[in-house]
């Protein structure tokens, strides 16, 4: 191939006299750095100081708990819509009015892509994206969250539920 035989030669920009002197350029850089000290800070002292995300934030999905039970009726739509196949639901019969409840509800957080489709499809507003974003595991099994980790009282999710109602 002809283009391979004659590769394009890129000339670097020639430095000016002042740049070649070196020291003035170093000073110019230091001035820029030191000027930052007097500007407002953007960093925060994590983990002592934590960020509270706005209601529109999509943190890890959780199950809404109301009066001690989950709202979920184990319809399986979240599991069906999940593009990453992260959710597994096993329903069973309950004496409660809602008839069915999830005897097992697992989200594989290693698969979850935080798209929020589960929240969008849920007919009971039972699974919502929380404001929690800290997820660490030391093994694959630990990444699978069961009902014990997923249930969250509705009062803690007030902002998100309000946000969803406004933007429905």
């Amino acid at each position, binding site marked *: 191939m002809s283009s391979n035989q004659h590769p394009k030669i890129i000339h670097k920009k020639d430095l000016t006299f002042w740049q070649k002197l070196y020291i003035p350029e170093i000073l110019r850089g230091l001035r820029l750095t030191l000027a930052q000290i007097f500007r407002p800070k953007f960093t925060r002292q994590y983990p002592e100081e934590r960020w509270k995300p706005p209601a529109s934030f999509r943190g890890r999905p959780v199950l809404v708990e109301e009066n001690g039970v989950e709202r979920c009726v184990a319809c399986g*739509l979240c599991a069906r819509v999940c593009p990453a196949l992260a959710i597994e639901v096993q329903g069973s019969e309950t004496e409660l009015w809602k008839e069915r409840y999830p005897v097992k509800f697992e989200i594989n957080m290693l698969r979850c892509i935080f798209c929020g489709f589960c929240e969008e499809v849920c*007919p009971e507003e039972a699974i919502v994206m929380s404001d929690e974003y800290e997820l660490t595991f030391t093994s694959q099994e630990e990444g699978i969250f069961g009902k014990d980790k997923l249930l969250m009282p509705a009062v803690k999710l007030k902002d998100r539920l309000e946000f969803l109602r406004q933007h429905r």
Partner: protein
Amino acid sequence: MAKITIDGKQLEVDNKLTIIQVALEHGIAIPHFCWHPRLSVAGNCRICLVEVEKFPKLVIACATQVTDGMVVKTNSPKVVNAREAVMEFLLINHPLDCPICDEAGECKLQDYAYKFSEGVSRFDFEKVRKPKRVELGPNVMLDVERCIMCSRCVRFCDEIAKKPQLVFIQRADHVELTTFPGENLDHPYSMNTIDLCPVGALTSRDFRFKARVWEMSSTDTVCPGCARGCNMKMWVRNNEVLRLTPRYNPEVNDYWMCDYGRLNTFKYVNAENRIKAPLIRKEGVLANQTDSGLVEVGWDEAIAKVASELKSFDEDEIAGLCSAFATNEDNYLFVKLMNMLGVKNIAFLQHLIEGDEDDILIRADKTPNNRGVREVGLTSSINGSGWEIILRRIDEGTIKALYVIDDDPGADPRVAETLARLDFFVVHASNENDTTKLADVVLSSSTYAEKHGTFTNFQGRVQRIRPAVTTAEQDRALDGFAMSRLDKFGAHNDRWMQGPKCDARPTWRILTCVANALGAKWKHNTVEDVFNEIAATTESFKGMSYMKLGLRGMLLKTKVEVVAAPIHA
């Protein structure tokens, strides 16, 4: 004959038919809830309204006979409007609880709501509330709110099952489906009403809330519950059978299936007492109440043991027991193996429950392949010796070794006593039973849900069974199993891919291994090879192949009635 036009298509049809029958026959779909090809016409759901030229009003396609010169429109604006109105009426009192409803995903009302409804209701009032959980019978649960009063279930009980147990009471929006006073919906075909129900009003108490329908894969197979061999679908999720539903075959079971077959022919596949690997009785391991005294071993060791033991006996000292629960292929190879060893003492057991039959589906013979065992070569080798004679010779001590495939002769305590006298006893079994307790070697065999094969029903119809559950040696994708979405897209470390698996092999494969260990050179790589050999060597199977059997099966060529082996239930 009548010449009619439906949607511009000119057809010449039998004038005894109705518009809906003609349309369906010619691939024109007319929506229907209450109409069913095998039930009388009720005409109460009104969704099948069509326009017929020169008729002043729309007519229901299910109750209107075709006449010469009729011009039918199934999609004119008038019809579309009428359907929308009917859907709106039906949905006035129907609860919108699809997320909770078990029918969701296979619900006619849900499907038609998407296809033919506007999706808007002008009804601003409270829906009528009715009982949600009514136990109609031992197997069927009723949600009265969801019922759309199509009366399919009522007509099924009256006309097909001939057990009028269901009835509607009250009027207008107070209508309720119920059983007659003092009656229960408990006839042997009660669960067909669940399939017939176009909505989620009637649900199976066994399957209720176990799974969503779209999570399962379905496999076309045959029920092994009796000699009828009803065609059915087997629904599997995570390698576990969850339910069975009938599959249409006009020659065998039509649209129906009995409750016994539906509930009792799959639970042992994933039962606790499955034999998970080959077992051998070893010196020094004592049997007691909790332990059978059998030790799990690898396939090679178990097969080598069977081969060496069989070699150590004279041909007259060995007896074999075929099985009407096993497939044609299994029995064919078993008889072939016995012939190879020169064994003449071969029999099989019949499992008849006298009187437990009717003229709908249920047969007194509770085995799926009785006819098949007699067809694939047992008769010629039976040589006058039946099971009773074999038992007598075991008692006398002239027969010392017994080879049993997929049957449970030890269930009879009198027989068990005799079997305990054997020097060597090898059994193919899928689940622990009274016979495996007595055996020296138990070879873990696949159930009918885990293998390919054919059963021959009482009519002489050869029908295929297909595997829906994988064993340790099989792979759902590579071995061509039906796959659900989860099966397709899951990875090996996903928890929904880790359902229980047994280290079992189909009986034909075990027999091939045993024969080859004995020095034969059988080359059956697949069960289809075995069937092709049967088709080539057995007159009544001539011309058959798995491809030709397809979904409906084929009748045997000859209809020779063979004298049955002695009966033992």
